């Protein structure tokens, strides 16, 4: 009760203080300075950037939180005063004006905890706020990483804190950086934001959770056709037997395909069209897959979630999570 009162008082003061604080429509939470720079170029200064990093860009609309190297499950971090202080530092800036939020996180417990708490705050103040979460899975997935990711996905989606969650692989970006003349991070984030509406609609129909892969700067002459390109993209994240049925393919801004088995057979025909538009746009393939390889790799840990949620009394709908990762 006292906690609840404190929370409401806190909000009341925040509202009063908000006259002195500049309000923002968009908020971005990220733990990478590179991502911040890309998004800064894209979204401009009308966005509030919360950077979970020690490096401080000297700008008015950036809040930097200290980076804490913590292990274990992120849900156990609630007693850490440093994290609570960090969250309290940000809260005054989160007011009801925020309409869009983009969260780019890794599986580190610290960043998961902070973003979860901030998303709760954002959704409490404005339930209509549009939130997209992009979760980067590490190249080598440990048990703790997988559990952290699964618990986070379950709690965020169960609580309605994010409209959708996209999982991607750090390993993919490591590979893509080797392509000459391409900034994969910038290209992929821009393509994601350009096509957000399509992606969001698609994910709403498929449990709000999906894997995203992107391949900017493709040369179809080298890969032969689009199917090869997509297959090679999967190879890069260790998926040698890709199954992309029911996935969404975004090929530049003009060509969007929802792949069912029939459509997949037709993809090759679109090569001609892609080669025609190649000169006008940067050729880019994004795949959004609700049952992608990365999500499959998480589902091995579902049985552990039963134990964790029981021990920690987490309100997680494990059945729903099981469905989302493709076990049912």
């Amino acid at each position, binding site marked *: 009760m006292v906690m609840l009162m404190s929370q409401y008082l806190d909000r009341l003061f925040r509202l009063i203080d908000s006259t002195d604080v500049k309000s923002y429509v968009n908020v971005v939470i990220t733990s990478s300075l590179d991502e911040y720079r890309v998004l800064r170029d894209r979204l401009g200064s009308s966005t509030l950037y919360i950077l979970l990093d020690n490096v401080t860009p000297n700008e008015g609309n950036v809040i930097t939180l200290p980076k804490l190297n913590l292990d274990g499950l992120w849900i156990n971090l609630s007693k850490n005063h440093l994290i609570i202080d960090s969250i309290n530092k940000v809260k005054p800036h989160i007011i009801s004006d925020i309409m869009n939020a983009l969260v780019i996180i890794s599986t580190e417990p610290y960043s998961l905890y902070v973003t979860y708490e901030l998303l709760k705050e954002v959704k409490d103040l404005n339930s209509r706020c549009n939130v997209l979460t992009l979760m980067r899975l590490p190249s080598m997935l440990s048990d703790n990483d997988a559990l952290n990711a699964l618990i986070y996905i379950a709690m965020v989606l169960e609580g309605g804190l994010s409209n959708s969650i996209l999982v991607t692989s750090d390993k993919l970006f490591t590979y893509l950086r080797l392509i000459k003349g391409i900034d994969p991070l910038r290209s992929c984030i821009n393509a994601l934001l350009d096509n957000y509406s399509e992606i969001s609609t698609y994910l709403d129909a498929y449990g709000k959770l999906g894997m995203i892969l992107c391949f900017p700067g493709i040369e179809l002459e080298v890969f032969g056709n689009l199917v090869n390109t997509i297959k090679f993209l999967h*190879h890069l994240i260790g998926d040698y037997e890709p199954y992309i049925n029911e996935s969404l393919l975004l090929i530049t801004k003009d060509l969007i395909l929802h792949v069912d088995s029939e459509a997949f057979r037709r993809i090759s025909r679109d090569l001609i069209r892609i080669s025609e538009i190649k000169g006008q746009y940067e050729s880019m393939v994004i795949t959004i897959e609700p049952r992608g390889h990365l999500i499959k790799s998480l589902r091995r840990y579902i049985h552990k979630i039963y134990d964790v949620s029981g021990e920690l009394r987490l309100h997680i709908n494990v059945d729903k999570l099981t469905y989302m990762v493709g076990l049912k």
Partner: protein
Amino acid sequence: MRFIELLQLIVFVLVFELLLYVLSGGISTAQLMLFSTAYAVILIITYFYIFSQDIRKSVALSYISLSVALIFGYSVSGVAFRSPLDPYYISLILAAISATNFIPAFLVMRQRHGFIVPHILIIASLPVAMLDPTGYASPALIAAYMVLSNSLEDLIIYAVSLMSIYAPYLILPLLITNIKFVPNISMLNMTYMLPGFELKPAMFFMSIILIYTLVGCMYLLIKKRFLPEAYGLRDILIRTATSYVLCVAAVLTVVIVSQNVISVPQATRYGYLVVVPLTASIFALLNAFNEMLTRSNVLRSKAMSMINSLRSDLNLYASVIEEVSDASTRLSINEVKDSLTKISKELDNISWELSKSLTTARRINEVLNRLDTELSKSLNSIKNSLLNKFASLVNDVKNLYNSIALTSGLMDSHVSDMLKHLEGVNDLEALPDALLKLKKVLKRLCDLCGNVLSVISTYYREVLGKEAYSVNAPIKCSEDLVMLDVIKIYMEFIDKVHSEFKDEVMTTYSNLTKLGRDLEALINSFKDMSSSEVLTALNNLRETFKVLPEFGVTPIRALFNIREVCMALRDNLTRFLDAVNNEVHVRELEMSNLIDLKDIKLDYLTTRKSDVSAAVNELLTYIDRPCRELVEYLVNSKLKPLSELLGYVKLIDITIKRAKYLSLFIKYLDDRLSIDGSINVDEIPLPSNVLSWLLSIYLSSRGGVVYDGRVIKRELSGTS
């Protein structure tokens, strides 16, 4: 009427009445009547003199002067007034009554058009009515007004004017007790002699005016609808008779109506029946005669004007014919001359007839019709015949010019403009000048033919490498129509030269169109080339051939087209070679950077380059030869130098594209090898050519890796 004019009228009336009032004390009644009438007449003459520019003002002032003078004549002639008022006031009342004369004055002032005679008659009617002892003159004049009117508006104005003029005299008996003292015996006096019926004379007068007005209306209606225009004596008589009958009817009506109102002696009534219609008929006769004279004058003047115009045209045509009568003009003009002489004689006859003063309007009208229909048409036909002959000549020259332009492909904008101008000549007056211009055009065309001979000789030399014709002494051209034949001879000669080389030209042309198709096919196979510079050069090459029509090409047109296309082909081939060289240079630099970076050998590219250089050098030896040889070489070689060059550029392009992913591919293979130990290359989702290219590079750059049975794996000896 302006305000100042109105003020002048009022001041005049007041001064005039005051003067009469003063004078009335010292002179006798008879003297006063005479004096005031004479004074009014003097004034009227003065007005007409002063307002000679605007006769209506004079008429209006005359109304007022006369009426005022006569009213005073009566009012101060010793009659006893019924009113107990002082004569001074009575005179003021009379002045006010006399002011009704302003009404006709205003009407006259406002009427800007119309015949002035009726107004003069109205002015005259009042003194006549006063002084005429018989009483016939006044109704006779009133009836006369009516037959002179030309519109309903005129009639109404006359009626209102009359009513306003007579109104004071009709009101006068109401004020005077003993009217018998009025000295003169007149129509008015007779009406005043009926004590106790003061208002009846008023009704009588008003009804006379009304009846005459109605008769006037009828006459107007009949005249406009049924009577002929006054073109001759018969028309005049019909109109006079009609007016007479109508006036008799009017007088009879008046007599019947007035029977119970006033007593007029029987003899007087008969007198009315004779005098009034007769007077009115005389005026009608005069009016109709006047109309006929006016019409005759107008028609005569129109006819004379037309004759003058025709004569002027006739003179012009004659002078033009004189100027263009040169035999070399090829315009046959003898029959035209005869026609003109005939027309001239007819015009003389008509002029003589018109000069007679007794010629009626009808006859003049007939003459006018003849002038308008026959003679004008004859002249027009002569004019058209001459112009048509000239147009035909221009057309001949134009056809010749088109033939030269078609044969040579050389256009002369000045000649084109001049011919366009000469085609538009439709005025006989401009014909001599146009003929001179035509001669100038012919000279220019003759010069053009000489030029064409020189040009085609050069073209045959350039295209076929053969000497066609050399002009040593070109024909001298002059400004003469005979040049028309000279040009025709020139054209025959040019055609002869063409026929000699026709087959060779057409073969070269056929080769050129084939080359265009081959080039199109070549470009289509390389259309995905990434180099915009090379693509632009290729497209320019393609554009070169688009000027070639597929069908219906004459040998001479083919010659010009071949030369034009060849010149563009040489330019565009040179540009293409430059673009390819530049592209190869840049791409080879890029390639060498990649090779240096990766330490990978791609030797076969340089081998290809030497092959290509040989083809290019061969092409360069042909590029400056005559067009026929260049085209034959390109057709026979099936564009080999171009396709080899493009193939080389494409090869570099593909290699660079592949090299962009080289680091990624190598890391991918390294990682898979380190994780899986071996890779089945059939699993790698890349096209076979890319895969073999990648494997050759990978295997040459990685020691301890072997390729065995479509599997890449680490060498066993290396791993042990």
